[in-house]
């Protein structure tokens, strides 16, 4: 032991203590491993985690009010809304100063749009007053209270100032409350009026329809997977083409094909009328409702169910089934007690794939769903591209993500995620 000193510390060949030398070598190894995955890590971070994070952050972000009207927010904080009296002149003066700056920067209409989500009429109020308040001089034209009320009587309404005060925080729970059909009001949290309550219903419908689609995919996929796994390899390959052909066809083509099939003078109705099962006068309404969405999506997602099931069933030894039968089991008992438990990992993998894909599906419900068969994703797309209420869209997306994660967790607890096999 030439590299051991008198006090018993082991030394490496270059004289450094062995412990430190080993730690350095390990650190270098870890660093090299990190460098190897760095491109992927950076890619995932830049293209996935940061954009999604910033999108989700929009669901609580509310700095527009305090950025556009900083003085008003400060002045309003001392105002007691419960008295039912209008704020004093100081608030109006601060508001005028803020608005003149905001109008010059053309920011007041954005603020109006933001506040309109909470109280209808705010958007037009800001736009109309913007045109007239431009002419006010914040230093000379005081007092402002009566002038503002003359410009738009909304400024003489206590509710306007209450709304402004309630939504002046940097962060808000308002979008999340809107996403579950509630509303943040000066008096606390309230439900939206009946005719505006659609989002919870849509969430429920999305979940139920996704479950129905997953269930029908299991029901249709299981026999086919069994047939594929038990046929001779020549037949199985031939039949597999029938599964893969729809899988390889463009999603849009398949959805349009279902439009051709299901519409009122579509293929199915024509055939039924031709056979005489359905009178020509009242053809079945198969499209633009929930039925259309379920049928089309079952067709589109069926390969995602069949392929994992097939690859799992291929690994099940047929001799187990024969052994069970030779020990006296009936066909049904042999299937249910021996074959089915072994095929559960395939069902689990297929179900997770189909359910998670269907819960966020957009194109198919949009095309064949009409109004009754749309999903929550269609609503998210509407708020992203048409109503431009990105905060609400982000809140809906966040809730959907949480629901999926919660269901995944529940699945892990009940079935066990180790019990999922893709092959």
């Amino acid at each position, binding site marked *: 032991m030439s590299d051991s000193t008198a006090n018993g510390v082991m030394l490496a060949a270059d004289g450094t203590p062995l412990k430190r030398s080993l730690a350095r070598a390990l650190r270098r190894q870890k660093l090299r491993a990190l460098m190897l995955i760095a491109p992927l890590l950076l890619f995932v971070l830049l293209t996935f985690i940061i954009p999604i994070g910033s999108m989700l952050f929009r669901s609580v972000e509310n700095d527009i009010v305090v950025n556009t009207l900083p003085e008003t927010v400060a002045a309003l904080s001392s105002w007691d809304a419960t008295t039912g009296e209008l704020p004093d002149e100081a608030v109006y003066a601060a508001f005028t100063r803020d608005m003149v700056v905001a109008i010059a920067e053309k920011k007041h209409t954005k603020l109006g749009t933001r506040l309109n989500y909470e109280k209808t009429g705010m958007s037009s109020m800001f736009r109309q007053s913007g045109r007239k308040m431009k002419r006010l001089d914040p230093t000379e034209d005081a007092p402002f209270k009566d002038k503002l009320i003359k410009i738009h009587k909304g400024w003489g309404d206590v509710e306007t100032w209450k709304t402004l005060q309630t939504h002046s925080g940097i962060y808000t729970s308002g979008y999340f409350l809107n996403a579950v059909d509630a509303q943040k009001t000066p008096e606390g949290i309230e439900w939206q009026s009946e005719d505006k309550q659609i989002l919870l219903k849509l969430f429920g419908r999305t979940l139920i329809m996704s479950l129905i689609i997953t269930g029908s995919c299991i029901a*249709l996929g299981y*026999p*086919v997977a069994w*047939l594929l796994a*038990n*046929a001779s390899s020549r037949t199985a390959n031939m*039949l597999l083409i*029938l*599964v893969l*052909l*729809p899988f390889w*066809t463009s999603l849009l*083509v*398949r959805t*349009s*094909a*279902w*439009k*051709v*099939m299901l*519409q009122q*003078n*579509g*293929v199915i109705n*024509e055939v039924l009328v031709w056979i005489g099962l359905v009178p020509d006068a009242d053809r079945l309404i198969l499209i633009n409702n929930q039925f259309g969405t379920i049928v089309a999506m079952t*067709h589109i997602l*069926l390969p995602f169910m069949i392929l994992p099931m097939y690859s799992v069933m291929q690994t099940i030894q047929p001799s187990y089934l024969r052994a069970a039968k030779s020990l006296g089991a009936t*066909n049904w008992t042999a299937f249910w007690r021996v074959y089915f438990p072994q095929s559960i990992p395939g069902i689990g993998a297929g179900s997770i794939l189909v359910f998670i894909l269907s819960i966020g599906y957009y194109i198919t419900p949009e095309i064949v769903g009409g109004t009754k068969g749309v999903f929550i994703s269609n609503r998210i797309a509407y708020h992203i591209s048409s109503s431009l209420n990105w905060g609400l869209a982000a809140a809906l997306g966040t809730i959907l993500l949480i629901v999926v994660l919660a269901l995944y967790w529940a699945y892990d607890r009940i079935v066990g995620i180790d019990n999922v096999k893709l092959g």
Partner: protein
Amino acid sequence: MGLPPYATLPQRVWYYGFRVICALIFIFLITPILVIIPLSFNAQDFFTYTPGMLRLDPDAYSLKHYQDFSPTTNGSVA
């Protein structure tokens, strides 16, 4: 998985019934893809089978959608 010669009647019924069910599922999978092919020869712009097409009237079919698709005949695309 052929049917053994000693299979009872219910077993036979199930054996063929199961294959009929599977055939129906395969039809479900493949028809929408096949249905869309003849429509590409539609003489009209509508996305349905016209009565003429169902009567196999040659006038109801055309290659005009393929001509629209080809850059040599459609100046607007080129």
